[in-house]
């Protein structure tokens, strides 16, 4: 019974390694997705947090996993169509405990995304819930999708 579980976990080790390799591929192609690195980033976290960007019609949604972080730990700014998320995550070890495993690192990060469409800077909201940061950016009126009515001419 135990050997089956062990094998099972090794299967996921292999998948995790594959994922790490894929992540490296993603990093190499960051430019192609319109994701730019801030020049200060080399000193801190290489590429954290990871962004998923959705086009939801009237809004752009930028989402990032920021486990353990609250609104106090995060700064979000928008300037010239470039969205920047920065902050700091401290690795807190509970007092009086020995450490067996440490995979959740302390981070100081600052990442920027060049947004692909014009944004109404007054209508940007950001909230963090259950460790997920969601930034909603309203597109400028001229960038919103428009329905064009097709008229039949007689």
């Amino acid at each position: 019974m135990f050997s089956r579980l062990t094998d099972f976990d090794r299967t996921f080790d292999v998948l995790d390694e594959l994922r790490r390799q894929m992540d490296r591929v993603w990093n190499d192609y960051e430019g192609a997705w319109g994701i730019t690195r801030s020049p200060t980033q080399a000193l801190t976290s290489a590429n954290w947090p990871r962004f998923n960007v959705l086009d939801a019609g009237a809004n752009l949604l930028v989402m990032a996993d920021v486990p353990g972080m609250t609104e106090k730990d995060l700064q979000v700014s928008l300037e010239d169509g470039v969205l920047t998320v920065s902050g700091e995550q401290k690795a807190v070890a509970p007092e009086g405990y020995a450490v067996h495993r440490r995979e959740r690192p302390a981070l100081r990060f600052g990442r920027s995304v060049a947004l692909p469409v014009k944004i109404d800077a007054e209508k940007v909201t950001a909230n963090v819930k259950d460790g997920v940061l969601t930034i909603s950016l309203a597109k400028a009126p001229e960038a919103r999708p428009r329905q064009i009515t097709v008229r039949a001419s007689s």
Partner: protein
Amino acid sequence: MSNTIAKSTEQAPARAEAQPLAIRPRVDVFENEHELLVVADVPGAAKDSIDVRFEGGELRLEARRAAGPQGQPLAEEARLADYRRAFAMPEGIDSEKIEASFTNGVLTVHLPKSSAKRPRKIDVRTT
């Protein structure tokens, strides 16, 4: 011959459905004289889907990722998937007293040691 091939392809998707790809959450593991403490990053987990099991000396953490907003993806750097990870735990965990909590996308599991396994001073009697 052709029959077996057809059979194996039929089985493959069924197995994939039973065990979909999952992310191994990052964890910290701490210990003091009273307990083991496991802290796992499970951002975006659906609260009611979090499943913490202790069975046969193994701690198993599972959680489903809550559905996010809909839209057309422009960039996908992070793979969003369910979470699953298992650990072999040392003997002497009091499984009745395990407690877990979920805050800001972080799952914290307290595994108290059974009193028999805590360090104990043995009196030496003279006869």
